[in-house]
């Protein structure tokens, strides 16, 4: 039965519909795989009993002919999504014991379509990180290892647990959240597909906030088709989120025509970075050739403000976070460290409850918003953000989609990036501009590095044009024919 874990969501959907196997069987296979993959530490909380219960319900529904789009499909949920009556931690000590009495809109949408939750996936604390090294619940391991090297590699971040669970065949798909690349970069590091939809496509209600103007939910899957299926189940207007957009969710799967003839694909000159590993650019060139061969027209474009994106992002995101995380104060829920008075309680709780990276960003953000610095930092960064959006608007007058690398490197080993946070922040260099502009973007596994590690390419399109993203990604996926899987060393 373990073969069931190797199925795509699309194939499992068809198999379930045909009665080849039940959701109980499919779910049981994944529970076994999830337990076996314990060394990856991809989950903070596993919910196998709930999964079996949900799978049983799914089978009953299917028997009545009432199956939804994701019915019976076992998935992992990033532990940033609030799940009713299930511990929700954001991978932070400060949310100790927090069990919400409500369900996030996106997960509620998934359950309404019949999806089955295996558990809550590990992540960087409050989604702040690019390597999943900041979780209070420990590092997540990448299922992939370098050829001839047994060192553990990071899965990327912040949706590292989600990526690792999907890449290790523990879950058929997983929800992620992407603020500056937190879906796309770990997807690239683990050889899976990671989709960040347009800002406003998925509701943020019930997702623990990091940076409200950037956070966006999205699917992490092993194929582009699975990504389309899962996003369709997640997306939709939500009156409870003022920034969600009232648009009908298209049939994303229908966009996978395989036909990109005449599509104009932009190649931004500013993404050719000095000093970058040449294999990243080589893979990019390959991608360009694949798209050209498929009939797309390649257009050189310029996004002149790209180099300011990372600095602007690292002002805006921490600024919003410094305010969003003020609610974790020991008063209402989660950790409380008693103090001599209220201020002492706050200080002690937050000192103990937050990890180093979160504290660093809260300090940066608090500073950037302070009287006398607001104009120089936050306001300036917002102006840069507008410029970056304008760059993309200009570009999309000429092209339908943009092709870039997803990350400047393959997965790295723990501690390899040293203590310099700036070097870590560079991981987001290709993903952050689209986040600032709110654009939909996907990372598709496109090849292996010289060390045998997966590398992704990114496709971006206009706001709310996920269909073009999926269409181009489908073609890229087919051309790349990425079939490598990690050796399942964790099974021992």
């Amino acid at each position, binding site marked *: 039965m373990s073969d069931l874990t190797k199925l795509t969501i699309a194939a499992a959907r068809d198999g379930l519909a045909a009665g080849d196997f039940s959701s109980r069987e499919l779910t049981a296979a994944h529970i076994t795989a999830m337990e076996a993959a314990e060394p990856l530490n991809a989950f903070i909380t596993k919910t196998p009993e709930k999964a079996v219960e949900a799978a049983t319900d799914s089978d009953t529904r299917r028997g009545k002919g009432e199956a939804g789009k994701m019915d019976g499909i076992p998935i992992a949920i990033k532990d940033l999504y609030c799940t009713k009556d299930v511990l929700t931690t954001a991978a932070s000590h400060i949310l100790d014991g927090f069990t919400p009495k409500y369900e996030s809109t996106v997960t509620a949408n998934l359950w309404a379509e019949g999806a089955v939750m295996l558990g809550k996936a590990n992540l960087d604390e409050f989604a702040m990180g690019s390597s999943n090294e900041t979780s209070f619940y420990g590092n997540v391991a990448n299922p992939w290892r370098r050829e001839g090297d047994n060192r553990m590699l990071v899965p990327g971040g912040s949706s590292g647990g989600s990526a690792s669970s999907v890449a290790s065949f523990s879950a058929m798909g997983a929800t992620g959240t992407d603020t500056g690349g937190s879906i796309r970069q770990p997807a690239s590091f683990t050889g899976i597909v990671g989709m960040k939809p347009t800002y406003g496509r998925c509701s943020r209600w019930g997702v623990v906030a990091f940076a409200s*103007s950037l956070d966006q939910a999205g699917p992490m899957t092993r194929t582009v088709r699975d990504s389309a299926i899962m996003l369709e189940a997640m997306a939709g207007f939500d009156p409870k989120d003022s920034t969600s957009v009232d648009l009908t969710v298209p049939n994303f799967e229908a966009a996978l025509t395989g036909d990109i003839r005449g599509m104009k694909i932009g190649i931004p000159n500013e993404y050719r970075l000095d000093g970058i590993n040449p294999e990243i650019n080589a893979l990019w060139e390959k991608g360009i050739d694949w798209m050209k061969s498929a009939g797309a027209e390649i257009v050189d474009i310029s996004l002149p403000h790209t180099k300011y994106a990372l600095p602007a992002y690292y002002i805006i995101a921490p600024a919003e976070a410094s*305010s969003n995380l003020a609610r974790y104060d020991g*008063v209402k829920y989660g950790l409380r460290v008693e103090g001599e008075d209220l201020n002492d309680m706050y200080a002690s709780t937050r000192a103990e409850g937050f990890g180093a990276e979160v504290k660093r960003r809260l300090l940066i953000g608090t500073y950037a918003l302070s009287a006398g610095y607001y104009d120089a930092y936050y306001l300036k960064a917002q102006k840069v953000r507008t410029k970056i959006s304008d760059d993309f608007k200009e570009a999309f007058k000429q092209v339908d989609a943009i092709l870039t690398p997803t990350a400047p490197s393959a997965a790295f080993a723990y501690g390899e990036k040293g203590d310099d946070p700036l070097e870590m922040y560079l991981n987001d260099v290709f993903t952050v501009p689209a986040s600032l502009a709110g654009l939909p973007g996907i990372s598709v596994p496109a090849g292996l590095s010289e060390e045998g590690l997966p590398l992704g390419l990114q496709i971006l399109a206009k706001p709310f044009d996920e269909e073009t993203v999926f269409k181009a990604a489908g073609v890229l996926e087919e051309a790349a024919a990425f079939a490598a899987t990690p050796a399942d060393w964790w099974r021992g």
Partner: protein
Amino acid sequence: MGMIVQGATGDWEVVIGLEVHAQVTSNAKLFSGSATEYGAEPNSQVSFVDSAMPGMLPVINEKAVEQAVRTGLGLKAQINKYSVFDRKNYFYADLPQGYQISQYLQPVVGEGKITIDLADGESREIGITRLHLEQDAGKSLHDQHPNMTLVDLNRSGVALMEIVSEPDMRSPEEAAAYVKKLRSILRYLGTCDGNMEEGSMRADVNVSVRRPGDEFGTRCEMKNINSVRFMQQAIIYEANRQVDILEEGGSVDQETRLYDPVKGETRSMRSKEEAHDYRYFPDPDLLPLEFDDAFIDGIRVTLPELPDDKKARFVSELSLSPYDAGVLVAEKEVADYFEAVAEGRDAKLAANWVIGELFGNLNRTGKPLGESPVSAEGLGSLIDLIKDGTISNRIAKEVFEEMFDTGKNAADIVEEKGLKQVSDTGAIEAAIDEVIAANPDKVAEYKGGKDKLFGFFMGQVMKATQGKANPGVVTQILRPKLDD
């Protein structure tokens, strides 16, 4: 008249500006659907949003926005078609989010004005700087437990309008008149119930002193004053405190102070150096508020006649004195009552009855107008009985008290008690003849030139008729008989 504090070195003028927090009348909070009823069990009106649960998001209550625009229109203010919600960041136990959603640089309402009415019959215009929408915080209860503070989040997220005045007031009386007028306007508009005891209206009071004609002095702010009387006391105390400092050659520190109504003094809460850096920035969870002229006009057409316009109309059309008109328009309910009484009747007489007898009896019994046993219709029919000569004005007062105490209508009381005025000339003439016959000496004196005795005869006749004789008729018959 401005308040002048006389110091040893000369006069000091007091300068006052007010920030009034008015709870928006709405059955839901500003960004959540929770109820807002006063006096509910602690923490019974709290949603996941109000308690700042992780992942919760605010959604604007459109009704609250309409109310803010309505208030802006009532204050003859600039309505900003584009405004922004900002986060005001600070930590406190009763502020669950760790920030208050407010409006900072771009408020929904800009400059406006209020005309205040002063005791000497003068009026002054006080500038409104702005009005913005914001959330209220919860309530910290420090007196419920020996060593713990309890938090009630029922108020957390309740919609407030902060209405900021220019520093245009010069005395505690002007500040009081401003608050009363603002309250009156808000109640007319139905945008705030103005209930200061329940905390639906509170004021932050900024006070400074200066030599008349000089630049503004350094101000101190007194937070959260919830009665007009306390506000006036606080201003007087604070002005004198500042003058004392300046007279001794010191300087006033800009700070936030707390008024203690028990001790009747203000004390420092935090200095300028300790002031919070609120790190305002636009709330990324909310879109800017945008609306068009049609939205504003749609609200404008529903505005009621406001107290100033009503007062002007009462004076010009109903010929009331400005004083009476001012008394009648202060509360919309009173004005409505008065207008119902005055409809088709002598307006001045109606005003006298409302201000005199009705208010007197309401005061006597401690009842609000809403619980008056005498309806406007009832008072009107009593006035009709005076006008058509059925009863005299004096009898009418008796009848009114009876109406007030028993709830019966005027005609029934007059009927039952036989209070009808006697205009039958035969009966009156008979009474007059009896009085003249019984007082020959007084008649002689009258005829001898003591004209004042006419009143004596009137009184005797009225007494003989138990006050029911129509005084006009009595005069008509009595005078020729005496003058014979």
